[in-house]
């Protein structure tokens, strides 16, 4: 139990997706202009990462890993090179499914998400979560916790950045630095701050 809690904190803070691995930066920068859209993106990230990482783990373990097809009489088969296409397909399907379910049963949440949901298909952080899961050989429970933790870390970072940028709209910055430039500098400072968490969890 405490192992899983440690893994959660590790995924959320020590290995924060956007700030230490630079994953998902495109949406991280583009959708953090307003706190409201940052919150929407953060919640969507937690939901999609929490579902796709364990789902991809099941598919990888049952079909794609080296020797996984032993139950079908083909123990020598190694399909792991197909994992990229399989993961992308699963992510696209889950995002589409989530969109339809929300549209049908929770229209209020659906309108709040707006354009973010379909965009998540091509989010580096989500694909990255699944790829890290394979590289580090997590089991099912660990991959679920890892997905939720990584999503929470992304949400925390993007909401903080959104709040800071909302204040910056009134700041008097040098012309060339306005917008994208200052956002990178702020992200760098947040990354510096998050690196302090590295000592928090002994890995």
């Amino acid at each position: 139990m405490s192992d899983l809690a440690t893994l959660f904190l590790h995924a959320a803070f020590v290995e924060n997706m956007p700030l230490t691995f630079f994953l998902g930066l495109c949406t991280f920068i583009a959708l953090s202009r307003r706190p409201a859209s940052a919150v929407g993106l953060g919640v969507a990230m937690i939901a999609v990462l929490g579902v796709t990482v364990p789902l991809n783990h099941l598919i990888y373990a049952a079909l794609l890993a080296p020797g996984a097809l032993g139950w079908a009489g083909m123990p020598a088969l190694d399909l792991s090179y197909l994992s990229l296409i399989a993961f992308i397909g699963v992510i696209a399907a889950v995002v589409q499914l989530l969109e339809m379910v929300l549209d049908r049963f929770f229209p209020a949440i659906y309108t709040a998400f707006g354009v973010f949901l379909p965009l998540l298909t091509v989010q580096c952080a989500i694909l990255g979560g699944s790829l890290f899961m394979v590289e580090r050989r997590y089991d099912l429970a660990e991959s679920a916790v890892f997905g939720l933790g990584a999503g929470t870390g992304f949400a925390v970072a993007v909401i903080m950045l959104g709040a800071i940028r909302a204040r910056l709209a009134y700041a008097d910055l040098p012309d060339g630095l306005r917008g994208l430039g200052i956002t990178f500098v702020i992200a760098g400072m947040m990354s510096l701050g998050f690196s302090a968490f590295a000592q928090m969890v002994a890995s």
Partner: protein
Amino acid sequence: MARPALWSVLTDPLVRQNPVTLQILGICSALAVTTSVATALTMSAALTAVVVMGAGLISLIRHHIPSAIRLIIQIVIIASLVIVIDQVLQAFLPEISRKLSVFVSLITTNCLVLGRSESFARLNPPVPAMVDALGNGLGYSLVLIVIGSIRELFGAGSLLGYQILPTVDQGGWFTPLNLMLLAPSAFFLLGGLVWAVRSVLPAQVEAPEHTPPDSAGERT
């Protein structure tokens, strides 16, 4: 298409319409792989190859793609190309392939690749599409190589593995800046690069947001 038009399609994305510093495309991988020039070069070559071949293929079948499922088709084409590149790297450059770890696979979701095929290759014949992709790939490479050179030069005192500044460990005078090899410095350098480009080309400066954040324009 006339030659000057093709020429400007190729050279515009280098600085004036640079995909990384102006359009916020493909930053994800741009920062992670720039701790040394060698990895930055490999990554640039891999991405340029994928974006050019992907643009050519998508542009060839552009009349046959139903627009409802075009994203899925584009992603599958790109993912197949990325798998090929990944296998080639693992076979011939195992050392660098290990350093790049998951980032080669992540070219699949690189916004730059999908962005170019969605906004240009889908609507244009193969030759301009591939030239446009090559220009964007080179613009991306330019940014990667600049940041990679700065980080390797000041973080380890070397370029491409050759020692330029003799470090203290080796009896020289240069103390390596460890910060340059960590994550924050990549953000600072890219921010500084954006600032430098926009100081030279004031047309890229963003309009000030004096309106309250609630009514500010939304960008996706």
